[in-house]
């Protein structure tokens, strides 16, 4: 996983509550067995005017000029400004993969759905929770100022605005450490392999019915 230190970039405002993971990446793109290449289909049903297909040449598809992602002023955006309950619905990790592949590094929203929030951290993407007033303020500033950028410093837990003022944010200490150091969760957990083994042995004795082999046969 890539390390996350400081990220500065254009902010793209997505003015919509309850953005679900079907909205972020529609199901037909979930047939891939890879983790990459989802960026061109991020927000597919809103970004293009036709129906997207996994094998389509996306450069030939009609673009929806009204959708925020297609507005030239937000080209190359790294920070996604969003509304309540962002990432609700399906657990598909293809949603953070698509956001990351497109180039987003940070999401700012008043709230997130649990599974999506968790999935972001596993992919070097930083979802920040800010209070509603801060989010509304940022929407107004982004829309009023073309080329509006924010600089997000994870170590300091601050967001630097163009006027030099900063917004502080909180982040789980463990997740912060993992992001800053690009740590692999599995490697970390396996450092506790002895604890897992000893738990497992006790549990097998206490609840042997969870460890029986089925009478069912595989096909």
């Amino acid at each position, binding site marked *: 996983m890539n390390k996350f230190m400081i990220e500065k970039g254009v902010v793209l405002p997505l003015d919509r509550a309850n953005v679900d993971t079907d909205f972020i990446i529609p199901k037909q793109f979930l*047939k891939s067995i890879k983790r990459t290449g989802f960026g061109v289909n991020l927000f597919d049903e809103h970004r293009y005017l036709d129906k997207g297909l996994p094998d389509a040449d996306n450069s030939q598809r009609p673009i929806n000029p009204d959708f925020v992602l297609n507005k030239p002023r937000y080209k190359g955006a790294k920070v996604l400004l969003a509304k309540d*309950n962002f990432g609700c619905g399906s657990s598909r990790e293809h949603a953070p993969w698509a956001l990351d592949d497109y180039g987003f590094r940070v999401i700012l929203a008043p709230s997130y759905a649990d599974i999506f929030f968790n999935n972001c951290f596993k992919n070097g993407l930083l979802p920040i929770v800010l209070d509603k007033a801060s989010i509304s303020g940022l929407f107004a500033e982004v829309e009023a100022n073309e080329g509006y950028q924010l600089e997000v410093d994870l170590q300091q837990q601050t967001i630097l605005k163009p006027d030099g003022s900063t917004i502080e944010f909180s982040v789980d200490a463990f997740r912060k450490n993992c992001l800053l150091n690009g740590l692999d969760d599995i490697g970390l957990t396996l450092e506790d392999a002895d604890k897992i083994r000893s738990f497992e042995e006790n549990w097998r004795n206490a609840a042997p*019915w969870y460890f029986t082999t089925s009478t069912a046969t595989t096909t």
Partner: protein
Amino acid sequence: MSSKTLYDKIWDAHLVSERDDGTALIYIDRHLIHEVTSPQAFEGLRLAGRLPWRADANFATPDHNIPTTSDERKQGLEGIKDPVSKIQVRTLDDNCAEFGIFELKMTDDRQGIVHVVGPEQGATLPGMAIVCGDSHTSTHGALGALAHGIGTSEVEHVLATQCLMQKKAKNMLVRVDGQLKPGCTAKDIVLAIIGKIGTAGGTGFTIEFGGEAIQALSVEGRMTVCNMAIEAGARAGLIAVDETTLDYIKGRPFAPSGELWEQAAQSWRGLVSDADAAFDEVVVLQAEEIEPQVTWGTSPEMVAPVTGKVPDPAQEADETKRGNIQQALKYMGLQGGTAIKDIKLDCIFIGSCTNSRIEDLRAAAEVVKGKKVASSVEVAMVVPGSGLVKKQAEAEGLDQIFIEAGLEWREPGCSMCLAMNADQLGEGKHCASTSNRNFEGRQGFGGRTHLVSPAMAAAAAIAGHFVDIRELG
């Protein structure tokens, strides 16, 4: 010892370690796997040279991506016309073979939607910690198991370590007092709950569903309720174990038997919240007030009783809510103030991990028996949740009732709930669906979904528009 909720009890029993900041390792008893969210996880294992920690804790079946027409299905893997889908299903077969994981393949009679098959096989047991790379894993909470949906990185983590890294959620009790009225079902209960607390109402919580109306439900009905806990924002839903639960499990292939069954059952009877356990939040509904529910918008919280109307945005004082209603009505092609019963349907979908079990099919069949699907309905299909549900339905003659009424009788799979296979709702078409999500494009590009119970979907198929199931003789 202080009193505990059911969630507290299962959590504590599975706690391997806990860091100072509350991040914990939870031991996982059962990991359910399907073809869409697992290939990248297996690839990760291979790249790191890791093996599954405990291969026999895993259970796989393909469901999301497979065709449901019998001509495609009878040819097995080779019959899948979509080459990308075929690769994904084959990859699951190959990964399970390589890593020694139990799989019910597409051609097996017992294959089906993973959340139908797990409980059906007894692979879901009370008190287990269960995960699956699918948000509707909450379904398994109906049997008193702590069941979480997870992402693909976590699928890999569970495969490699048998643990999930997690912070404990807060406790919410949703109590449904009293008795449901005739014609009202588990689906109506859960839609009414979501209508009340909203799609983010359960975020950060594990919801325990309790009260007289929940206790009165069959295990299948309880699965419908827990299935949609995720639509209320909760990662897990739970229902206390009782004799109904134990009766359901006994004798299933993966369940313990003999002396071990007796020991297990004795232990499982304790899987209830203590009488004086404290919940962080309590929500109460009266079952008598719950009417058959129909969603009118693009989020499951956009729901109304069948006797109601589509809301008029002009009547909404809150600016954000008004905007949301306007956006939803534009997508749905509906006018504010329209009576729910005046919404015309082009498509009927009876299936999904929410409502594709035998009791769901019986309820739908009872409504359509001896009648014909309205000529204005273009597509009407019944997709059983598993091969065993299909077999049982056929033994009861339900397939013939559906076919004679003009509904298609399909092979088991997720089908038009998420439309990853060929079963897709047309652009601009209205569908009465027994599934769980009415998001934009969920059932097909530009498709318009209305979530309802199986009986309500069946009644809509006959009438061509929504009808109050309670008014049918």
